[in-house]
């Protein structure tokens, strides 16, 4: 009986994952096609990759997209962390709840509306659309995500930890840097990665605020797909998929790193003590 249940559960998992990953692998598979359509696989070749690397416009767009994502998530993390600290500090319940609601409204409102409102905002103030407008709007929609990742960590922190640090002579800054930040650092890291991925694959907001002469990847692929998709996009997708894998592995290793390092150091020490 036990074996039976185990078996079915696994089958279910395999089914779900197959369903989720099939389109992606289909896409990846045809990036190696010698032909130019996604219907007939003629033979293996690197030609679409060669095309991609020869396409300087595309390379430029990939780099711009990464730069935007890196900058936007970094700045959003800094602003969002401070914002979370402020919300955490607020004692009056109604004020705290209103701040939280304002934060959450930005999270749940459709990207199209946010994008359109940014467009109106930028044009109203005569702000030139391009790199800066994309960066600013990405920062803006990433902040609520960061806040949402950090607040639960802060709420988990017992007030007595802050009291204890003060008791041992810490100044306000030392309380923050030596107790609060280390405690919420997993939240900060998660917030940073979330913001990074949101920025990387945002289409709707970006579409409104790019203007002429500056594209991000999602907007560019959308434009190309309208003219009939070339397998160069498949090659790019394969590379992006690998990049995402590396990113996730990196995140995993980073979160494990600190504890493992300290544990290893201790085991070595204890091994030395024991004969």
């Amino acid at each position, binding site marked *: 009986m036990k074996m039976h249940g185990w078996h079915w559960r696994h089958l279910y998992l395999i089914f779900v994952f197959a369903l989720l990953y099939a389109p992606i692998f289909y896409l990846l598979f045809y990036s190696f096609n010698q032909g130019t359509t996604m219907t007939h696989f003629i033979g293996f070749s690197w030609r679409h990759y060669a095309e991609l690397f020869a396409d300087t416009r595309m390379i430029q767009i990939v780099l711009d997209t990464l730069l935007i994502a890196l900058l936007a998530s970094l700045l959003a993390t800094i602003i969002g962390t401070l914002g979370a600290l402020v919300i955490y500090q607020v004692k009056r319940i109604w004020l705290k709840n209103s701040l939280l609601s304002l934060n959450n409204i930005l999270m749940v409102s459709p990207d199209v509306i946010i994008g359109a409102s940014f467009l109106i905002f930028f044009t109203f103030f005569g702000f030139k659309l391009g790199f800066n407008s994309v960066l600013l709007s990405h920062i803006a929609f990433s902040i609520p995500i960061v806040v949402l990742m950090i607040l639960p960590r802060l709420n988990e922190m*017992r007030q*007595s*930890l802050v009291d*204890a*640090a*003060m008791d*041992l*002579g810490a100044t306000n800054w030392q309380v923050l840097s030596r107790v609060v930040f280390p405690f919420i650092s997993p939240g900060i890291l998660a917030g940073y990665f979330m913001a990074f991925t949101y920025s990387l694959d945002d289409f709707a907001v970006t579409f409104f605020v790019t203007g002429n002469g500056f594209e991000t990847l999602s907007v560019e692929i959308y434009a190309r797909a309208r003219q009939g998709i070339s397998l160069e996009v498949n090659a790019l997708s394969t590379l992006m998929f690998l990049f995402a894998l590396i990113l996730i592995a990196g995140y995993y290793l980073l979160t494990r790193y600190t504890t493992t390092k300290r544990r290893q150091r201790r085991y070595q020490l204890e091994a030395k003590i024991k004969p």
Partner: protein
Amino acid sequence: MANTIIKFNGVEKRYGDTVSLKKIDFELEQGKFYTLLGPSGCGKTTILRILAGFTDASAGTVTFKGKRINDLPANQRKINTVFQDYALFPHLNVYDNVAFGLVLKKTTKTVIKQKVSEALRLVRLSGYAEREINELSGGQQQRVAIARAIVNEPEVLLLDEPLSALDAKLRTAMQVELRQLQQRLGITFLFVTHDQGEALAMSDEIFVMNNGEILQQGSPVAIYDEPINHFVANFIGESNIVKGKMVADHQVEFVHQCFECVDAGMRPNEPVEVVLRPEDLDLTSVDQGNLVVTVDTQVFRGSIYGIMSHDHAGNHWLIHSVHQSTVGRQVGIYFEPEDIHVMRYGESEAEFDARLEQYEGEADEKI
């Protein structure tokens, strides 16, 4: 008092409508061991928090060496705390937790190392410096919290039930260690517990609290022998409390009999409560006893028997005896006049002290 280090003057604490502390007054002398003793929720932690500076007093003044410190932030007070919930930093290991205060004071590495290992030795955790906090048991965490506070050698150390998670043996050992440390370094300790045995064993002075008030302050012996009211008598040690009447000075009536006692200074025929400690009652034969009781139950407690009995008026009497008795048998209990302690209803500590002084003065004149 010349060497008063801390003084509470009319300190109150309110949270909204609820009053946690009502007009607390006390003084702590330098280098003594004080204990706050009282049931859960009576305001012990609140007093420590006000003293450490984590929360403000709603009214009253707190002074440290004669200076008002109500507005001094916690990080500038020469006071350290062992928290009731330990409050260890989870991202730091044992060593870094204990070293935290010293590092902030920019102590040199070698001194820190030596002081931390000394503190860890004191709390019997020498091999644990590199452990993570979540790899420790509750009792071990509690001892790290003690080490983290004492390593700073503060002038005043506040300990909020610092031994509550330890087993009986380790607890006794730590009591001795803490007491020795306190005497060696001359630190003023303010120790919180709701274990009356611990309070009696360790303290120079005990404050008995209930409902946000200090009911009685005194040495362990004074509080044990002369509790001022029913609550204190019941809370500290075991006691037999019966209703009685003060017939005249040195004459008290209870269980319809008149007994000689040492208390005086009350109105004639004033209703009172009489306390007799179980260890002051001796079992004897029916005709030699002051009172006659019937044995109800008998419990062996290791070194003594706890014998529950009742008299003909329905009062219950607990007797501690090294000898066994028989359930259902009538026995006599015998006590001396000094064993009787008389308490007036609603008498405050100040009134009690005044009365004591008065009739002890009279007694001296007679001699």
